[in-house]
């Protein structure tokens, strides 16, 4: 069935090549807003796209492999309370409550499949964007 197609946000003009941006690219949010599910699945890092009320709308392949959770088990659930509770604290989830816009990077540890794994998180939120995003990359 695929994921719901993202709408390009007003004022966000994607200017990155569609082959795939980097984890820390400047225009990443706009790109994500316009990305198809297939495009998300191509990325070398995890993408969780949520509605503003934190229900999961997209859960890409990288993330699914890392966590062991199938997308269909996750989509529609509230992310911080019902999927990835490890992030349900002031370090991550709390930041989404602070203000209308965020683009922040955080070094932390996830417990994918109960094994602690170093990750780097990027949190993206913008008033013109339809969705809010958490990106997860492996950290050595």
């Amino acid at each position, binding site marked *: 069935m695929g994921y719901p197609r993202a709408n390009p946000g007003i004022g966000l003009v994607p200017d990155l090549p569609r082959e795939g941006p980097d984890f820390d690219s400047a225009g990443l949010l706009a790109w994500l807003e316009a990305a198809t599910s297939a495009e998300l699945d191509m990325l070398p890092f995890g993408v969780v796209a949520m509605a503003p009320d934190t229900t999961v709308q997209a859960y890409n392949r990288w993330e699914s492999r890392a966590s062991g959770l199938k997308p269909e088990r996750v989509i529609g659930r509230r992310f911080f309370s019902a999927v990835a509770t490890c992030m349900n604290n*002031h370090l991550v989830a709390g930041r989404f409550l602070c203000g209308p816009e965020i683009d922040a990077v955080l070094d932390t540890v996830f417990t994918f499949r109960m094994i602690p794994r170093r990750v780097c998180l990027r949190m993206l939120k913008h008033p013109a964007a339809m969705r809010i995003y958490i990106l997860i990359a492996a950290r050595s």
Partner: protein
Amino acid sequence: MAQFGLVRQPNRLPASAYDALLEFLYLAPVAIIRFAIDGSIDMANAEAARLLMPLSPDAELSNMYTLLSRVVPDLPARVARFSASFGQVCSQVRMQVPGIPTVLTLSVTKIDDDTLMAVVQDITQTVEIKAREFHDRGKLEAIYAHVEDYAICRVDLHGRIVDWNTSLRRLGGWEEQDVVQKSLSLLLPFDDAGESRMMAFLDRACQHGTASLECWVARKDGTRFSASTVATALPDGDGHAMGFVLVTHDLTGRQHMNEMRRLASTDLLTAALNRHAGTARLEAAFSMLQQNGRHFSLVMADIDHFKRLNDLWGHDCGDHVLIATTRIMRETLREQDSIIRWGGEEFILVLPDTKLAAAVPIANRVRAAVEAGGITFAGAALSVTVSVGVCEARAEDGTITEVIRVADSALYEAKRTGRNRVVAHRREREATDVLF
């Protein structure tokens, strides 16, 4: 800390056993960590990351001892001290970072010589609730301990006392075992039909939310005190009464106050107002006249030949005559009239809302009643009479002292012209009329 609500979703696809297990562990609401003797963590669930990452000094979840170095710095020592191969190393150890409201507990179990498992739980809410309860209880205890004349207790719908506190001991000498689960009628005896009257009282509280009554409250030793009791219905979630709070106010203190006030203003011998209180009464009456135009008249009465009476019969007789005369005057006067013992054998009667024309007959009734009073002493009949001066107060008099002076001059005239008579001061011509 962000806590988004849990949204229950129907499981749309059958989960494999592995999927189910994974989700189960991801959503477990306690932190579970497995670590080696040296502290190195090899497995941890999501809740562990959630609770412990904020504590981590280095954004790592790699070593238990490092992770908890700020909150349980002696954990390595505790583990080292635990010599057995398995068992509980520590249980429910409180962990709190200073300045951060979160409170966690840690329990560590040794699984084998190389392996330990820790469980961490967030008890912040429980702690907050307990702290609030403790604080509330502290406030209640302070109320119970310090509100002198009040007792408070709770009763259930059947009128059984639910709990005890120190106020019940203070007011009634009741201890916990005396009252808990006993009927409220133990404290509120309601001499006849006690139980049903008590239930009727609670019924009223049920209907109107609150009810009050004045009644006797029993102490443990069988004595009673007069009290005012208020029952307030306690509602459950649906607004139905599930019990009552009773507050009983010991009125004895108030009665004592009234008693003290009365004693302070009463002439000890005759029970008339003493001069001090009488002055206040007179001043009040005069200012009512000046401000509101309320009339009043003054009657000054003086017992005739009182000194001779004392000399002949002794001071006991004199006292007896004073008491008897006051009694006769009280019986003769109206409710609203005041009797002031102004001097040794001299009285001022204050007649409110009374003008001269009405005051004079009253004064004469008093005079006649004393004369016919039939006062006896030591078996002998005494002849007791009073001389009386009457005047009506006028605002132009300026002060109450002036009014008294006017009445006094009428009294003097009564004495001068033969005693046992009423003289009214008519004012117009600064002349007095002998009326009786």
